[in-house]
C-alpha cells in the first residue's frame, strides 16, 4: 500500500476557463502532504483531479499528467471508477449515508468491490477499519444504529473508516476538520499521523497551524491575480515552508501579511 504520485505540468480547465495552471509536484508515499493557500486559489480543485472527482463538473478537463507509481491516472483506458477505488477521499462536511447503519456505511465500499465476501470476513474488515479510524471503542455497541446519529467528529471519522475500508493507496482529505471543534480536530489529526504509516495522505487545509502540525511537506497555492488562474507557488518540507520559504508570497501568506 501507499504509492507515490507524480504530477507534471497539470492545467485544469472548466470549459474554456483555465482554473489552475502548470502544477508539478511529487507526492511522497507514507507521508502527509498539506496544500495551503487563500480561498479560490484552486487547491481543492487540484485535489479533486488526483482521483478524477472533478469530472463530476460538466466540461471540466485537465492537461498534463498524473502518474501513480507507474500508472497514468489519465491514460486512455483508465476507468475513473478504478482510480477512485485506489485513491479515497474525505470531504469537508462529513457525509455518511443517512439511511445506512454505521456498519453498512463502512461496508458500503467493500460490498462494491467484492460482492461475495463472507459475513465473518466482512465483520473483521469493518472492525479493522473502525479501529484504524479510532472509532471502534465509541461505536462497537451500536454498529447497527444510523450513522447520522453520531457527533460531527465521529461522523467524520466514520467517513475516514469508510474510505480506508477499501484499502486505497492514497487518501485525499479536503478540509476534513473545518466543520469540527478543536477536540474532534485533534482526534482527526492524531489519526492522520497514525494513518501515514500505511497510506499516502494529501490534505487541503485553511488552518496553517494544522498544516504545520500534521504534514511533512507543504505546498502553497496562490492566484496569479484577479481572474487569473491559480498556481503552485512552491512546495517544500513543512519546516522550511514555515521558517524560511524561498518565495516572498509564501512568507507574506504564512505570516498573515497577505494581500
Amino acid at each position, binding site marked *: 500500500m501507499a504509492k507515490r504520485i507524480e504530477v507534471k505540468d497539470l492545467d485544469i480547465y472548466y470549459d474554456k476557463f483555465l482554473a489552475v495552471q502548470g502544477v508539478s509536484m511529487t507526492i511522497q508515499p507514507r507521508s502527509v502532504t498539506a496544500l495551503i493557500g487563500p480561498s479560490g486559489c484552486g487547491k481543492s480543485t487540484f485535489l479533486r483531479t488526483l482521483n478524477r*472527482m472533478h469530472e463530476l463538473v460538466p466540461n471540466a478537463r485537465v492537461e498534463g499528467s498524473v502518474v501513480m507509481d507507474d500508472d497514468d491516472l489519465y491514460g486512455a483506458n483508465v476507468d475513473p471508477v478504478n482510480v477512485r477505488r485506489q485513491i479515497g477521499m474525505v*470531504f469537508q462536511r462529513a*457525509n*455518511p*449515508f*443517512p439511511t445506512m447503519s454505521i456498519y453498512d456505511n463502512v461496508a458500503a465500499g467493500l460490498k*462494491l468491490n467484492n460482492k461475495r465476501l463472507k459475513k465473518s470476513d466482512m465483520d473483521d474488515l469493518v472492525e479493522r477499519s473502525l479501529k484504524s479510524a479510532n472509532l471502534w471503542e465509541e461505536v462497537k455497541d451500536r454498529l447497527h444504529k444510523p450513522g*447520522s446519529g453520531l457527533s460531527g467528529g465521529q461522523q467524520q471519522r466514520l467517513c475516514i473508516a469508510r474510505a480506508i*475500508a477499501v484499502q486505497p493507496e492514497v487518501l485525499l482529505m479536503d478540509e476534513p476538520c473545518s466543520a469540527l471543534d478543536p477536540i474532534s480536530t485533534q482526534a482527526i489529526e492524531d489519526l492522520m499521523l497514525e494513518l501515514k504509516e500505511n497510506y499516502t495522505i494529501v490534505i487541503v487545509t485553511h488552518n496553517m497551524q494544522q498544516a504545520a502540525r500534521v504534514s511533512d511537506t507543504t505546498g502553497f497555492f496562490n492566484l496569479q491575480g484577479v481572474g487569473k488562474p491559480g498556481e503552485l507557488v512552491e512546495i517544500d518540507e513543512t519546516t522550511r515552508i514555515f521558517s524560511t520559504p524561498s518565495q516572498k508570497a509564501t512568507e507574506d501568506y504564512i505570516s498573515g501579511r497577505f494581500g
Partner: protein
Amino acid sequence: MASTTEAPPRKNRVPRRPGDRIFAGVSTGSGVLILVALAGVAVFLVTEAWPALTAPAEDIPGGQGLVFYIWPLLFGTLISAVLALVIAVPLAVAIALFITYYAPRSIAKALGYIIDLLAAVPSIIFGLWGMNVLAPVTVDPASWASEYLGWIPFFAGPPSSTGRTMLVAIIVLAVMVLPIITAVVREAFMQTPQLHEEAALAIGATRWEMIRMAALPFGRSSIIGASMLGLGRALGETMAVAMVLSASAGGITFNLISSDNPPTIAANIALQFPEATGVGIHTLIASGLVLFAITLAVNMIARAVINRRKDFDGAN
C-alpha cells in the same frame, strides 16, 4: 401560600397593519372555503346515499342488497388502480432516473416537458385512444397469452374478441398516472444531496451503484408518496375507463383478458346514472360515497408518507 406579586398583564400587541389584516382574512377565508366545500360534498353524499343504505335488499338493483351491488364495483376499482400502479411506478422511476442521471441535458429538458404534456391530455382522449387503438392491438397477444400463459390467473381467458378488457383499462390508467408520478419522483432525485452522491463515487461506485446508494434511499419516501397520488387519480378516473371497459356487473375475477369484467365505481356511475331511477340513483351515490372515502384515505396516507421526508433533513 407563597405570596407572589401579580405581574400586570403585559401589553405587547404589535400594531396590525391593514395589509396584514386583509391578507390574513383572505387566506383564512380560502382555507375555510375548501373545508366547507369538502364538507358540502360529504353531506350531499351521505344524505343522498341514505335511502339506499336503509332500503330493503330487494329494492337495490340486482336485488341482493347494497353490499352485493357495490362489492364488485369496488373490486374492479381496486384491481384496475393497483395493477396500473404496478406498471406505472417502475416505469416512472426509471424515466425519472434517466432524466436526472443519464440523459444529456438538452434531451432531459425536452423529455421533462413531454412528460408534463402527457398530464395535460384530457382523459376522454385517452379513452378514445384506448378504445380505438390499444384495444384492437391487444386482441392477438391476449389470445396467445390465454393459450400459453393460461395458468396465470390474469390470463385465464377466454380472450375477448373486442379487446375492451380490464387489461386495456389498466394500461390506459397506467399511462394516465405516469406523468404525475414521474414529475414528483424526478423532483426528489434532483434534490439528492451532492454530498451523498460524492460519498458514493469517492469509494469507487459506478453511476448505477451511486444511484442505489444515494439517490434511491433519498427518494424512497417520495416514490411512495407519488405512487399514492397516482393511486388516487387511478381510483377516480371515470371517462377513460367507461369508454374502454366493456363491463358486466357481478364479474369478480382476476381474469384480465376476458369480456367478463367487473366495472369500476366511477365508470359505473357515469354509465348507469342517465337511466337510473328511484333507489337506483341513491345506490349509485352510495357507491360514490365509498369511492370518496377510499380516495380520501389514500390521499391522507400519501400526505403522511411525504411528510415523513422531514426525518431525512436531520441527517447531516
